[in-house]
């Protein structure tokens, strides 16, 4: 099967169609997997509950049932809402998520577009979702929505910076911004002459990894950084007025973004899809690459959701000072140290 895949070279239009279809299939699937595994099952076990039991074996199809339920609901928009902006907002958020999947490599060739600007592109398109959030909050004509959107914008701007700065350390060490280039440079590396696990950047960039994961948590507006959707204060922020499939789109986008950010973290810090003792152009990677990536992504996602389920919400001033007074200086220090060591060693 693998040689067949390797020899498959479709014309441009066909490969574009295939890429669009693959992204269209992968985004809801990954969101569904994260939702079922973490939000329903692992969260329940952490809280000594069973979680959903009825739909499918041990309740594994519960989210699918919920999705169908959302699709059946009436498409309601509030009185005095700005209809066009209100309806477009979830799509802007979803578009940002779809664009993120474009750059995530699952092997040397299994990547939608191997961009030369790689990780820079990822950071740029991830910031587009803020526009959608602000649109949603403003167009709902609801003061809770507006407050939620303002909190979201303040938080996302604040945590965008540590995220960019955490990535800079990795880019300096790898010497490239291309995501596949970063995977290859980890794969070719060695730790004290031992090449068995390559040189995953988490060993040298552990500070960067910590900052990146904290910033991802904030970008996803998950607890302990869930001020924008704090249900006990502002109902659920910018999502208050959304029902049916528009709410479903927000939900999908959140979990799909969690997956793809975990994937980016894996590529940047954990060696991505590569297995160091197998040559990178081996045909096995057409099957093995996505599997390895998926396994590592689930491990990182477990970390993200573990924090989500166990920590209480930060206060707004704690949240801002954590970003500006702790994460950003730490990230700058990390960059300086990395740059000095890169030149000296």
């Amino acid at each position: 099967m693998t040689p067949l895949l390797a020899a498959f070279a479709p014309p441009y239009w066909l490969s574009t169609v295939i890429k669009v279809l693959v992204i269209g299939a992968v985004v809801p699937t990954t969101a569904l997997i994260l939702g079922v595994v973490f939000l329903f099952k692992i969260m329940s076990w952490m809280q000594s509950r069973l979680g959903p039991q009825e739909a499918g074996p041990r309740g594994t199809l519960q989210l699918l049932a919920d999705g169908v339920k959302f699709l059946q609901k009436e498409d309601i928009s509030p009185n005095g809402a700005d209809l066009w902006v209100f309806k477009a907002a979830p799509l802007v958020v979803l578009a940002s998520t779809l664009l993120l999947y474009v750059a995530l490599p699952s092997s040397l060739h299994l990547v939608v577009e191997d961009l030369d600007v790689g990780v820079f592109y990822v950071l740029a398109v991830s910031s587009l979702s803020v526009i959608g959030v602000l649109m949603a909050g403003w167009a709902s004509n609801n003061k809770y929505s507006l407050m939620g959107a303002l909190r979201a914008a303040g938080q996302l701007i604040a945590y965008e910076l540590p995220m960019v700065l955490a990535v800079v350390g990795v880019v300096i060490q790898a010497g490239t911004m291309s995501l596949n280039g970063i995977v290859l440079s980890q794969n070719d590396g060695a730790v004290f002459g031992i090449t068995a696990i390559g040189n995953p950047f988490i060993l040298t960039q552990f500070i960067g990894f910590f900052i990146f994961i904290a910033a991802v948590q904030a970008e996803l507006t998950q607890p302990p950084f869930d001020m924008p959707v704090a249900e006990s204060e502002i109902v659920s922020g910018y999502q208050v007025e959304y029902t049916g499939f528009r709410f479903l789109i927000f939900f999908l986008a959140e979990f799909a973004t969690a997956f793809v950010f975990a994937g980016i973290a894996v590529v940047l810090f954990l060696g991505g899809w590569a297995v160091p003792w197998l040559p990178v152009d081996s045909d096995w990677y057409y099957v093995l690459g996505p599997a390895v990536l998926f396994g590592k992504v689930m491990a990182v996602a477990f970390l993200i959701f573990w924090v989500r389920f166990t920590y209480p919400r930060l206060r707004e001033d704690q949240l801002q000072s954590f970003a500006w007074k702790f994460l950003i200086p730490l990230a700058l220090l990390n960059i300086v140290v990395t740059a000095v060591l890169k030149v000296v060693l």
Partner: protein
Amino acid sequence: MLALLVAQNIAFYVIAALIVFGAIRVVTCKNLMHAALWLVVVLAGVAAQYILLAAEFVAVTQVLVYLGAIIVLFLFGIMLTRAKTGTDEDLDNGTIPKVGAGVIGVAMLGLLGYSLWDGFGDQEIGDLLVQRTAEVSDSIFSTYLLPFEVISVLLLAALIGAIVLARRD
């Protein structure tokens, strides 16, 4: 190559028309928030034109800086100050500012058009190759090092100035 160029030209004109339409809506909109959102269309269109010109790095920078930061700050500011839905009649300027803006706009169009014509004439640009990010950084940190440093210092001065103006104590 020819087919690619034709496709590129068609895409250019479609996106250019969208940008011009968006730009007109930015200044004629009766709602401040809508004007800001039309500005998103304009800036995203500019990023798309950069991609057509095979300047990946510039396009991504355009998205990160203009769409991801500046527009978000615009929307943030508007929502903090006047966040009402519906139209706002006192947004419009009088006749004299409108005519003045029109004259300046036409003058800028003429100036930029002339400088383009003066610089390139009917010279044909060859194949567009994707510009690697490494080339961009190499030219910034060798040929254009001095302008780059001057701009950095200028931006730093602007930043400090903004902080000084904003702080009251």
